[in-house]
């Protein structure tokens, strides 16, 4: 008897025209005459401009040294950044006290990171405590007093000021924004009118005009003798501006919560504040998180504007460094590229986080 066992012929590889780098190139680079032309055009631009830029930034850049004169190679003079690095980060904050700024920033990172890695049941408690305690601690660290050497706010500066302004602004604007958003949804006509007017006013004008308002008008509003700190005035202006945006973000979240939730809460006998605190806001804020992160990114970029009213954030530090008589060699590109790079890393990372949270949150609500 024939012992036929079925042996299939060996699977053949797909033809080289359908798989592999050549097929990929054919598919995604040269699929039509127009595409071929575009590929050649952009390829030419990249080959022509990317190597010189890399060469300028890395290969023939000056890395070692302390003065402008040591920038002898044709590339970027990164010594400029190296020498001004501490100023760019801390402004004129006294050098022996930099550890306090570092501690405040590390604490900030810790508070944020903890929210992602703590076990679920602890997150909320730790979150609330850190939301109230952490700002006080960092204020104490930055300003001093109570046993620490006092550092007046005109010495604060550099990139740490941008970070602190942005975080403080978002922290203050969140409660105000929530109140304005709730007011906007309110049935009480007068409350609604006040909230709508505040939101539309501060959202409709440029941040500069609000900063100017804080800088030239605010001192007039207070009784004679009350001196308001310059940083404080900028902070108030930023908070007002940001609260308006925050209110709109929170409103978006509130509108996404089905009416049944409120009605269910009412039928359980919960009053307005309890309904909001226990039922509506937790859900609304949760789905607003990606947008809150996005407004935070916008605010973070906008903190550079305080340079116009004379605060020494990172961009005005760079401007001052470029005017310094030891560094008059025109290091504008190095300076701006460095600051741009730092901002870019921060903003890009945060926008990725925002997308990640959005995707993660998405699963809980889809019911299909």
């Amino acid at each position, binding site marked *: 008897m024939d012992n036929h066992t079925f042996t299939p012929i060996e699977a053949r590889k797909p033809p080289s025209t359908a798989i592999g780098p050549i097929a990929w190139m054919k598919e995604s680079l040269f699929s039509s005459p127009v595409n071929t032309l575009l590929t050649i055009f952009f390829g030419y631009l990249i080959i022509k401009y990317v190597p010189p830029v890399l060469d300028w930034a890395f290969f023939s850049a000056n890395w070692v040294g302390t003065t402008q004169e040591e920038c002898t190679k044709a590339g970027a003079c990164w010594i400029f950044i190296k020498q001004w690095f501490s100023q760019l980060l801390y402004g004129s904050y006294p050098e022996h006290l930099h550890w306090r700024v570092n501690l405040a920033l590390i604490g900030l990172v810790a508070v944020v990171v903890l929210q992602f890695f703590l076990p679920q049941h602890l997150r909320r408690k730790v979150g609330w405590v850190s939301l109230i305690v952490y700002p006080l601690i960092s204020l104490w660290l930055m300003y001093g007093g109570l046993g620490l050497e006092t550092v007046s706010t005109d010495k604060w500066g550099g990139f740490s000021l941008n970070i602190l302004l942005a975080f403080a602004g978002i922290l203050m604007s969140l409660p105000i924004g929530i109140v304005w958003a709730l007011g906007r949804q309110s049935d009480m006509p007068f409350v609604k009118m*006040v909230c709508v007017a505040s939101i539309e006013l501060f959202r409709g004008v440029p941040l*500069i*005009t609000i900063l100017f308002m804080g800088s030239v*008008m605010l001192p007039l*509003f207070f009784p*004679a003798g009350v001196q308001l700190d310059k940083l404080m005035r900028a902070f108030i202006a930023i908070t007002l501006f940001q609260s308006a945006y925050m209110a709109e973000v929170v409103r978006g979240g509130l509108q996404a919560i089905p009416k049944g939730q409120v009605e269910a809460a009412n039928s359980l006998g919960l009053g307005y504040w309890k309904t909001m605190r226990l039922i509506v806001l937790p859900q609304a804020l949760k789905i607003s998180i990606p947008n809150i992160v996005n407004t935070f990114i916008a605010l973070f970029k906008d903190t550079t504007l305080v340079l116009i009213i004379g605060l020494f954030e990172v961009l005005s530090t760079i401007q001052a460094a470029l005017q310094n008589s030891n560094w008059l060699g025109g290091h504008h590109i190095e300076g701006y590229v460095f600051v741009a790079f730092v901002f870019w890393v921060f903003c890009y990372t945060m926008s990725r986080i925002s997308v990640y949270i959005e995707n993660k949150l998405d699963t809980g609500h889809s019911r299909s």
Partner: protein
Amino acid sequence: MSNLNQKTAVPKAAFYNRAEVRSVVFQFLVFVALAYFFYTIYNNTLTNMQARGIRTGFGFMSQPAGFDILLSLIPFEATDSYGRTFFVGLLNTLLVSVISIIFATLLGFLVGVSRLSNNWLVAKVATVFVETFRNIPLLLQIFFWYFAVLATLPGVRQSINFADSIFVNVRGLSVPRIVWESGASFVFYAFLAAIAGAFFLSRWARKRQEATGQPFPAFWAGLGLLIGLPLLVFLVLGMPASVEVPKLQGFGFKGGMTLIPELVALTVALSVYTASFIAEAVRAGVQSVSHGQVEAAAALGLPNAKVLRFVTIPQALRVIVPPLNSQYQNLIKNSSLAMAIGYPDLVAVFMGSTLNQVGQAVEIVFLTMLVYLLINLILSMFMNWYNAKIKLVER
């Protein structure tokens, strides 16, 4: 079941627990608090202003300004009034906003569509463009273009020269200018007439198509009318216009039109920054059109261009227009960063120079804010009208 018929006495809520009463009381309290707040501010401000010898009211608007302005669309001299500085600044703000909105829209649509290109390289280049410019502060970008790029351009005598008619140097961009001679206004009237003609033509074409099913190439006919009629009038009148090319004379350029570097830097930065946001809106809009729509249109035998025009674009626009509106508003607000590089916009001229000299902070800051609010309101109204026009008509 029998419980249903039992009449349980519902206790009436106490007077102070009734919703209407609470609402009135709460609103009254808010009103009193706000009134007290504003009254205190008003009083303090008046006292402070008296103490510092600052006058109130808008009387200063008619006093002579005494400073010069770098760029002005209307005739302006230092002896003109503060009121006129307001309009000079406002026009400069509108100028840079309008130019930037046009460029940002064109660039944004181009990049947004490129991100969806089936050419891998084009899509990647567009992605890098968006992710780079979106994540860097606008003020930094303005500084970069102004201090790092434009300030390092060659001097007037070593201008970069394009075809002997466009010159780029550290003082700005000199381009040829069209000089209209007498009779040129008729060309303008012809253009207006052509716009009206094209409008009625497209209406007639649509009506005819709805009635008879016969299409009429209204777009091409209209375009022909828009270009042809003014051109015809222009030729008939014997070409009453000439081109004035900028010429190097002494230390500067004579003739032509010179765009100051502040304007160029601001326009480039605003356009590129906003374009990266518009690109994202456009991408989201195009992606929101479901693939089945395109396939169905193709199955009906529509050629690619018509699929785009009648199926993809109208549906994508519905998603694109609302974010486009807020991006335009942001651009107008962001144009106030002009102050940082000395472009004389409304904030720089009125809230900067004028406020410095007059010192009437309250009036000037509020007036400036009001102007931005009004501009944004008008823009919003226009965009909402447009949005309503292209909106999905649901039955």
